[in-house]
């Protein structure tokens, strides 16, 4: 009987111990640091190619008490899911990168982000282009993020294919061909038809990115500036949609799978010859071409022109969620990572064009670099700087991302596949809009 009693006690102790383990598991890794000399671990979550990864070691060296635990998520879409999940359930890092496209959602819960004015944002907000700061300011005037990159759009084109079709291949002449500073979408499609007649090939990869660029360059996109839905009955958007349908009819769309392009194959085999390129997209073009076995000799180039004038696509912010235990240190890290020198370094690493005014004219940005070498030695930093002129912030509503992807995605695919005409697909989009957003 003695034996049995001991086992019962052991079992009870084991049971309590394991329960205690479970209960304490969540709390054990919290370090309640207060003073700035104490060792502090800061977590940061970024995504895609933001070019920040090389900078953390430098910061740790300058601040011996700080350890940075960085997570980089492969794509913006996955990062958005990750953020939403953690926003809902807890577990946000000390520094969270958010993308321009999510701002609508972020602003809905802007009070869960630290107001960076408490840590000196007011003094340094002049460092960034003003519309970038405006984007990160919520309706109560709180500044919740420091701007990293912006996405001014230029045109990537394939010089070799242009030449073969009897079009100019020199980047200045190409800019002129599309209308220079007064380039319009009409002119763009006109050149496209010219190219198609001469070569028999498609002009652009698929119409989704053109649509995106067009919507982004309007003063008001899917929402009006005061937050009303602005799609149904929007003749500007509809006319452009019909224009895309015409272009597809004329054989200008290669109907490629967005973000796939046959694992980059279509960038090498001449399937299409123009591509809309915000700064960060240059790295994507280079990466895809190289993944399919191409290199600089494939012929891609970058021209200082964009149909319909200035357009911005993407760009991110570094925010500090209020759940951070070290908001002061986290804000300092975010500030440092978005300062001029660091933005120059990020640009050189990933082609992300700085939102920091001083960095935009830094020789590290305007001078020659690896990325430019791939694009036929184009001065990419200089061109992006010029493309950034006149860009303004557009109000992003809470369902902007859904409208972009789930409302206009399916009809756009049908349009590119030539399954239905412009009018039908536009009506499909409106039907989807009413089902999904309403």
């Amino acid at each position, binding site marked *: 009987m003695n034996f049995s009693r001991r086992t019962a006690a052991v079992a009870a102790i084991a049971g309590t111990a394991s329960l205690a383990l479970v209960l304490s598991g969540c709390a054990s890794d919290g370090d309640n640091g207060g003073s700035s000399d104490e060792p502090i671990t800061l977590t940061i979550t970024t995504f895609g190619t933001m070019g920040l990864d090389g900078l953390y070691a430098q910061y740790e060296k300058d601040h011996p008490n700080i350890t940075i635990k960085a997570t980089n998520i492969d794509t913006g879409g996955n990062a958005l899911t990750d953020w939403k*999940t953690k926003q809902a359930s807890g577990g946000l890092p000390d520094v969270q990168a958010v993308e321009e496209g999510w701002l609508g959602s972020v602003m809905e819960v802007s009070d869960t982000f630290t107001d960076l004015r408490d840590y000196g944002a007011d003094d340094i907000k002049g460092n960034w282009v003003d519309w970038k700061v405006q984007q990160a300011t919520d309706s109560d005037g709180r500044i919740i993020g420091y701007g990293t990159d912006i996405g001014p759009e230029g045109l990537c084109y394939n010089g070799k294919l242009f030449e073969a079709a009897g079009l100019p291949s020199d980047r200045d002449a190409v800019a002129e061909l599309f209308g220079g500073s007064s380039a319009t979408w009409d002119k763009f499609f006109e050149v496209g038809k010219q190219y198609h007649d001469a070569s028999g090939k498609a002009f652009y990869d698929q119409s989704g990115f053109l649509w995106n660029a067009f919507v982004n360059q309007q003063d008001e996109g899917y929402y009006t500036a005061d937050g009303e839905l602005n799609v149904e009955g929007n003749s500007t958007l509809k006319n452009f949609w019909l224009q895309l349908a015409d272009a597809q009819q004329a054989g200008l769309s290669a109907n490629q799978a967005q*973000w796939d392009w046959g694992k980059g194959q279509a960038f090498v085999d001449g399937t299409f010859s123009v591509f809309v390129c915000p700064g960060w997209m240059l790295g994507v073009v280079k990466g895809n071409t190289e993944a399919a076995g191409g290199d600089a000799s494939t012929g891609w180039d970058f021209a200082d022109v964009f149909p319909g004038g200035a357009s911005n696509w993407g760009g991110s912010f570094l925010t500090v969620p209020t759940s951070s235990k070290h908001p002061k240190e986290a804000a300092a890290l975010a500030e440092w990572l978005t300062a001029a020198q660091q933005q120059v370094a990020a640009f050189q690493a990933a082609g992300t064009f700085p939102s920091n005014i001083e960095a935009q004219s830094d020789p590290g940005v305007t001078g020659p670099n690896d990325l430019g070498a791939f694009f036929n030695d184009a001065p990419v930093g200089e061109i992006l700087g010029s493309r950034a002129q006149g860009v303004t912030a557009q109000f992003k509503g809470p369902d902007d991302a859904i409208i972009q992807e*789930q409302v206009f995605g399916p009809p756009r695919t049908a349009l590119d596949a030539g399954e239905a005409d412009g009018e039908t697909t536009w009506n499909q989009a409106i039907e989807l809009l009413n089902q999904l957003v309403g």
Partner: protein
Amino acid sequence: MTTTLNAPPAAKPRLTLSQRLNHADAKYSPYVYVAPFFVLFGLVGLFPLVYTFVVSLNDWDLLKGQGDWVGFDNYIIELQDPWFWNSLGNTFSIFLLSAIPQLIGATFIAAILDQNLRAQTFWRLSVLLPYVVTPAAVALIFSSIFSEDYGLVNNILGSFGIDPVLWKHDTLPGHLAIATMVNWRWTGYNALILLAAMQAVPTDIYESAALDGAGAFRRFFSITLPSIRPTFIFVLITATIGGLQIFTEPKLFDATRATPGGAYHQFETTTLYIWNMAFNQDRFGRASAIAFILLIIIVLIGLVNYYLSKGIASSETKIAKRSAARRLLRYRSRKSIPFVAENQLERRP
């Protein structure tokens, strides 16, 4: 004896501490032993289930949290939502396209493995190999194989002069491609379970059937299949549950697209629809309602399966008993003929 009599009648003999502990030990320790399972089940099984139900009764936003109490409105909205029915149709289509060939294939692979093969362990392990590969890797490989412009399948079809199939664009080809992934992964796993059941079938039944002149096919259909029926139903139920919860394969089949399950939601399964509702549209309440409807559907199908299997199993034992009795009778009677004859011979003068 006297001391016992003199003791006051009300005072029961006082138990010592150790006696009481022994008593408590015998009474309560079994509960302590089984407690970890129930605590764990309560934490990771029951709590999420109940919480999901509570969420489904609210207009719950993923980011903003609990909204207004809406009762069963979310359920009503979902039952009228064309996308919900679309997802349910896709789920059942992919489920049927995968479960049927999968179970037929698994049965025949099991039957082959049940023979006396050389290097048995090698063959048995190799059918399990696809199961070891993570679904994510399977989905990525197959999504390249079924790529429309540059994929292996379309290249092969092209070399025979057949037009490329739009795997990621048309509904039925998409379902077929996803079902192929599921089959590739699960056929071997089910084959091994069926093999275990086949090995438990007593060999003397086969021997007597062989003596009766039944060929290999007759033996397979008349003995093997009826004998493994309970296991077969188990495999069917697990395949149903798995089939109705299929997520990774359709999610990664067209991974670059922001809308899950294809451009027109043409292979968006119900679990994918839940995911899309929760994490793209932020409608946590409605997502929970769909999850609960799916749970009810699975439970209903499980119940149907259960009663079917109970009915089959009981009639099967009846049939088995009857046929065994008949066979025994036949066997005895056949055996008895020569025996009698022998006797008669012996008796003959």
